[in-house]
């Protein structure tokens, strides 16, 4: 890959060529585009960053049948759930465990951060001050046990404004009027923030029966009972994601946080809970100046 010396070394050649051309590109919708112009933001270019990661569950597949080996080793949260029945049998899982899947968290963080940094590199190469309307996605690629992380956004320059203090462009998931309202309220965007927490559930006998719903002599109590092990995994995953994002924020605040949780069935009551927390890291730059009283409206639609 040959890249002109003055540009950022990590960008593909095609990206450098693209930015050398004249016209700006923007992934903004027209209303967002208009709102940006109105706030004094000028689009510079559509910027993107990608990272393809190898992605393996390591013996956690339904075929693999449960708690296999992990090359990375377990780090962080783990909790054992013992069988309350007091005997051991062949068809009976006498113990279960919740454990943090730190190797998946590391892979996610590494994929996301690399793609994000590449997007910032593109924006910096284009001389942008910030990136608005960021969208990040990840998806498996061509059934090969690989996952691609994608981060895209529209790089903007603040008309007659100063470049960012530390040289790196700021970024935000917001665009258009939503961003305008944030600035109006006295906050400036710093960066997007995203963390992940992943907790695996290796079910013990109780959890297994409860999730399978099978009538069995081992079943405990009434059918409306809480499935403690799963609840614990869900709670811990959310808590870990929240704690992690808090540790990233420093003196800033998180705006518009959204927590998305997916639960993957791995068979026999076993599952994995993945929790992704996204939000906009924002910093107060002026005191709140109350906005004019809202006017009630009805749409003629």
């Amino acid at each position, binding site marked *: *890959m040959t890249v002109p010396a003055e540009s950022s070394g990590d960008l*593909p*050649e*095609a*990206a450098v*060529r*693209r930015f050398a*051309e*004249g*016209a*700006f*590109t*923007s*992934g*903004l*919708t*027209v*209303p967002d*585009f*208009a*709102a940006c*112009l*109105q706030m004094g933001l000028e*689009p510079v270019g*559509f910027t*993107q960053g*990608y*990272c*393809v*990661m*190898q*992605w*393996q569950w*390591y013996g956690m597949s339904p075929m693999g049948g449960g708690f296999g080996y992990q*090359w990375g080793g377990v780090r962080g949260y783990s909790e054992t759930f013992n069988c309350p029945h007091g005997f051991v049998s062949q068809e009976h899982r006498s113990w279960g465990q919740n454990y943090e899947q730190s*190797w*998946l968290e*590391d*892979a996610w963080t*590494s*994929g996301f951060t*690399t793609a994000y940094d590449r997007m910032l590199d593109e924006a910096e190469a284009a001389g942008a001050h910030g990136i608005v309307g960021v969208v990040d996605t990840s998806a498996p*690629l*061509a059934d*090969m046990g*690989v996952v*691609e992380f994608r981060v*895209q956004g529209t790089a903007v320059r603040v008309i007659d404004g100063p470049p960012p203090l530390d040289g790196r462009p700021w970024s935000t998931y917001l665009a258009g*009027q939503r961003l*305008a309202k944030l600035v109006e309220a006295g906050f400036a965007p710093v960066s997007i923030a995203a963390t992940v927490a992943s907790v695996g559930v290796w079910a013990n006998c109780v959890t297994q029966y409860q999730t399978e719903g099978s009538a069995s002599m081992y079943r405990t109590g009434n059918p409306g009972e809480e499935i403690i092990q799963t609840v614990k995994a869900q709670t811990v995953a959310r808590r870990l994601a929240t704690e992690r994002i808090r540790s990233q924020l420093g003196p800033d605040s998180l705006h518009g946080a959204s927590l998305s949780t997916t639960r993957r069935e791995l068979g026999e009551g076993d599952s994995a809970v993945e929790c992704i927390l996204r939000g906009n890291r924002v910093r107060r730059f002026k005191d709140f100046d109350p*906005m*004019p*009283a*809202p*006017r*009630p*409206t*009805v*749409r003629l*639609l």
Partner: protein
Amino acid sequence: MSDTSDELPEELPQDLPEGASKRLAELEHGLFTSDLSVNEFLLIKEVGFHPVGFVMGSSIYHTGIQTRKWGQSQELTKLTEAMYNARELAMTRMEEEALELGADGVVGVRLDVNYYEWGKDAAEFIAVGTAVKAENGVSHRNKLGKPFTSDLSGQDFWTLMQTGHIPQGLVMGTCVYHIAHRGLGATLGSAGQNVELPNFTQALYEARELAMTRMQDEATELGASGIVGVRLEEKSHQWGSHTIEFLSLGTAVVKTSDDVTLPKPTTIISLDN
């Protein structure tokens, strides 16, 4: 058929079907068709345009096949060209219909690809939209003298005009790329580690950048100052999961005035549910 074709101006394109000429000739007598919603219609009238007719173009294209190397990531240039030319043909035919109506532009353009059971490796590319014409008679055609095209809705068209920009054309770039299969050695070599696979990252990155550069080239040709609403679409069509088309689409715009005439936003409370 023969009586209407006499009325058509001479410089008209010759490759439109007869049915189209008849339909468009009827439209010239004042009736218009459009797929605009009522709000879109009103907003387009508000900025001084009048819909003149629903226009379309289509092309059934045999995209063929191209040999791919199992273990190599590469652009499939023949397929790229086919996908590009087919869309270009559909768009050009739509533009010709608009031209026949004396339109200045086409708004709300949608590009679709359909596959039929009767045509193996063939696909139908369709472009449809509503042709519009300025009411004051001033031409808004683009630098190439053709009606502008854009995938903007009526609302977007109105908003864009208020920011001092005028659409020039729906621009696109495409790149069909084959993603290498991983050999057994490579798979085993990185087994047990969740690491970046730089070859794959680079291949996909390159493919998207190529598509976007091609789109930008089209915009430059139109003398555009920018492209709004860029979308990157990825589809495997009928080639299997390892061959992906990266399509980049957007509306090229040109700045005509520095005035942003949008009213200052006010905070509202919506009384809708």
